[in-house]
């Protein structure tokens, strides 16, 4: 095998393709090298056949890549059943991580907003009536509301930053996003935050122990749900335009 991975430039589409393939394969590094070596032999030989029938170097390389198949299809074909399960689990875990981060951030922001509104309008802290009649600790020491909200916002931001860093590292290594954390994420997130809003509304309605419900939490979650729903709709429209071609775009 030639020096795959070294000195790849846009003048070597096969080299770039092999780099993407190597990064996408979820097998041991040794096994990945063997798969890439075999793919390179195939692609270079196909490109040589293209050159022999009068194609330019670039045309021959692009034609060879085209008949070899897109990287995700080849990666998928090389995945064992266990590897596929691991990929699905990884995708679900990543989507859960991002959703949890957003939920915690929104909770913190909602809490801070609620505190700010109470401070501005000099409203009393929310009264929580426990079944036993005892007053919870948080009501005896009002600043704790603020501390909890700040902690939630900071923790959520840290989780979200961690997610972004991991994702960026995976992108640098050429790892492809799974559908849950990729194209389907806006729809998943919109559905999740809608469910959270509905659950909170149901809780507020039935209201055991909740005398004053902080509606700003609902507003925060609802804003996320609407934001992601809009993004999902835009993505669907873009996809529809791409599939329909320029004729249907108008």
């Amino acid at each position, binding site marked *: *095998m*030639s020096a795959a991975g070294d000195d790849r430039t846009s003048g070597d589409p096969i080299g770039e393709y092999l780099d993407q393939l190597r990064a996408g394969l979820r097998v041991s590094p040794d096994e990945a090298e*063997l*798969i890439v*070596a*075999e*793919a*390179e*032999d*195939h692609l*270079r*030989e*196909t490109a040589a056949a293209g050159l022999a029938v009068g194609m330019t170097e670039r045309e021959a390389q692009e034609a060879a890549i085209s*008949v*070899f*198949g*897109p990287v995700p*299809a*080849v990666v998928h*074909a*090389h995945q064992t059943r266990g590897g596929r399960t691991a990929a699905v689990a990884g995708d679900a875990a990543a989507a859960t991580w991002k959703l949890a981060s957003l939920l915690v951030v929104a909770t913190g922001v909602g809490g801070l907003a609620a505190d700010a509104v109470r401070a501005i309008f000099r409203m009393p802290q929310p009264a929580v009536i426990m079944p036993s009649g005892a007053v919870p600790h948080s009501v005896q020491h009002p600043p704790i509301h603020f501390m909890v909200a700040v902690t939630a916002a900071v923790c959520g931001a840290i989780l979200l930053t961690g997610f972004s860093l991991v994702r960026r590292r995976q992108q640098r290594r050429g790892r492809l996003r799974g559908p849950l954390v990729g194209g389907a994420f806006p729809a998943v997130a919109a559905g999740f935050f809608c469910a959270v809003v509905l659950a909170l509304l149901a809780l507020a309605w039935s209201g055991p122990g909740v005398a004053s419900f902080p509606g700003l939490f609902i507003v925060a979650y609802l804003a996320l749900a609407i934001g992601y729903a809009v993004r999902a709709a835009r993505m669907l429209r873009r996809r529809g335009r791409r599939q329909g071609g320029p004729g249907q775009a108008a």
Partner: protein
Amino acid sequence: MDRERLKGNLDLLLLSVLSAGPAHGYAIITSLRDRSEGTFDLPEGTIYPALHRLEDSGLLASSWAQAEGRRRRVYGLTDKGVAELAAEHTQWRKFATGMQAVLGWSAQVAWHPAGGRDPGTLGWSA
């Protein structure tokens, strides 16, 4: 051709191509496409995992050679692969004969609905 149907028979096709002698991936895929006159035309990159799977199950053996300054993996049938090919070939001929008999019969009925034959002779009871 329907890709799923082709995938279901890919192992037999690969073993059959290699019965002519050891070959590397490119030659196997080219031979598969040429011998089928373009009917069997899967994305080439997805055929290698099938070759690896056949090797894992002991039907093929591979070795690395050097060609045109690159490493090249060459596959060949093992004894187990030869036996498997023979068994699969027999099965396939039986299946194809059965299919042909049924499809040929139904085509005959479709083209000649009455067929000049009494439905009773077709094995139906009215």
